């Protein structure tokens, strides 16, 4: 397997900077996109990318493949950093996203997508994590459970709640045919 990280990990573990750079190159998007989709802010995602790989560098020597795949470990560190990052931030207002959607979207689709995106932003931290891992990275429930260190049943219920919340937002969006509206986040698991 061309992208198997094991040889790189082995060498990075003994201090080889080039191998660590290669690991970074191979997995930076995993970390960055997860952070961006979870936090909704590119600058925050940049920060998390730095923090996560500093942590990886620090802990790589003790990384033990018997306890799980490298990517599982990396997702877990990333999600934990994102949750902590969010916790530290004021949650009074949801940060405006810095993205500029291109004009290729018809207005209605744009509005719906924006509504979904903002609705994801308003999900609880824990629900957001399962949504991103499942619907962006297409990870199995078992993988998500392992990454988040939660029971499989909790993955199911979080995803169920999250999706139904998002559905309601879309329905409200359709009803108002305008911008995203306030919503109530269901009880956090």
């Amino acid at each position, binding site marked *: 397997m061309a992208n198997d990280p094991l*040889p790189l990990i082995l060498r990075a573990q003994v201090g080889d900077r080039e191998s660590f750079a290669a690991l970074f190159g191979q997995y930076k998007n995993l970390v960055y996109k997860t952070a961006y989709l979870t936090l909704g802010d590119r600058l925050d995602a940049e920060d998390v990318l730095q923090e996560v790989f500093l942590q990886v560098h620090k802990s790589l020597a003790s990384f033990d493949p018997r306890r799980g795949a490298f990517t599982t470990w990396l997702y877990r560190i990333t999600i934990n950093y994102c949750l902590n990052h969010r916790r530290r931030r004021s949650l009074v207002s949801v940060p405006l996203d810095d*993205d500029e959607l291109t004009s290729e979207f018809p207005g209605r689709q744009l509005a719906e997508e924006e509504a979904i995106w903002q609705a994801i932003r308003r999900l609880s931290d824990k629900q957001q994590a399962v949504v991103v891992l499942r619907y962006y990275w297409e990870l199995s429930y078992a993988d998500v459970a392992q990454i988040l260190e939660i029971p499989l049943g909790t993955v199911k219920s979080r995803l169920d709640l999250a999706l139904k919340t998002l559905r309601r937002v879309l329905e409200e969006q359709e009803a108002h045919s305008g911008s995203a509206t306030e919503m109530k986040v269901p009880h956090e698991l």
Partner: protein
Amino acid sequence: MNCEQVQPLLVSYLNHETTPSERALIRAHVSGCAACEQEIARLSAVQDQVRSALQRRAAHAVPSPEAWNRLEAKLAKVAQPSPDRFGTWLSRLAPGVSHLVTQLFLGGVTMRNRLIFTTLATVALAIAAAVFMTKTATPVSAKEILQQAYTVQAATNPTQGIDHIRSELYSNPEALPESQGQTRIIESYNDLESGNYRIVTTDSQNGKVVSVYAQDGSNTYTSEGDKAGLGTTSNAPLIIYRTPQDIANVGIQKRLQSSERLEAKNIFDRMYNAPEVQFLGQETWENGRTVYVLKSQQEVKVMEKDETARPIGWVTIYFDVNTYEMLGNQVAVEKDGKEIVVSSQRTLTDEILPAETNVAWDLSDLQGVNLVDDTQDEHSLPEIISLEELLATAPTPYLLKTVPDGFSLEITAAFPEPGSGKPYFYNATYRQEAEYFSVRVWGIPVKDADWVKEIYTTANGLVMYLLTEQGGEWTSAQVETPEGLTLAVVSTFPPETFKAWAEEIVLAK
């Protein structure tokens, strides 16, 4: 199954995450229930929309091209938290603060000095933000001033003498009412030829030394960090670790030289969308110099309890009208109708001293500090154990029979508490300058043949699986021992030398 039982399972059903029996029951129910069938269709559509929204957002989100450079600089700083020489335009532009900027963006941060770092970083970020965003702002005069400052300072790059900068820094990260912040003096000397430097931070109220970084040509000096955080009430002397430079500082200077420059661009990128900058005119600075005053409204970081908040605040910067040096700055926020200064910085001294100036690079002039020899740089490294400790603790310590001539042996290890169920770990590295041969515990069984290039067995029964390499001068292998343990061996040697050394690996007890 009825609707009430089926509906909580529908999302899992759509994701093929139900058991076969659940699936059969759901199908049976849905085939006769229009409401649940409709619900499935609706949830499926929502899933598609969520996927689409995430994919589209993520497609445009890629890390900064400078991300690796930033990280590499941070890693270098972590390995040796000594600042580089202050020869870049950034440091000349913001003397006294550049170290803080370096700490913030190049990552000279450890957990133990995190608190003070956060404070200083707040200031540094705001200052850096202001400096770089103004360069792109629309008002012509502000832009011109910044452009001039950039050009002049970039060209100011003395190569001889001793760069001496003394700054006063006021920090009030929680935006407390006036004068409740902390004022510190940061004094740096940097020998532009030899690379010797010293940076000493003191509390301006009691004169206590709170942090130190230095290098005198033989040793590096690193303080344990600002243990007291924002306060310096502790009477305990600051511990400063003295480590031979050849152990502590390999290749750091060069990396940081380039990374600072790259970091400057990164800061610029970060501030690209910041608001405009106003040119407020000229003022007389306290030492009689005339300064340009630039002010901008922007997001600044303040601490609210233990959390970081980002209110909109004001950043004011003062540039010398003749030299375009940045002489000072101030960051303020509005709170309860009042403007509260969150931080301010003033340059007290900024000069190039003659190269022969006598500077105590070895910190021998400092009072109230405790100098501790740390010849192996142990305070900044993972736990290192002796060979005897490894032999006494590890059940199956595979090592080379002897330490080869000219090589040193370093062992790091982690032995979990008995009964914890966690595996033990050790890594033994034989090193001679850039060459090394490393043996470590590697728990994963050899199973994926795709990246195994060659298998051979040593005379003492170790099965070596040489791995396919991805470029570079490397050989690595996974090793199965007769006891069923998996090791990893990594080396800078070519395969034949690697194999010869592997023949010398034995169970050391």
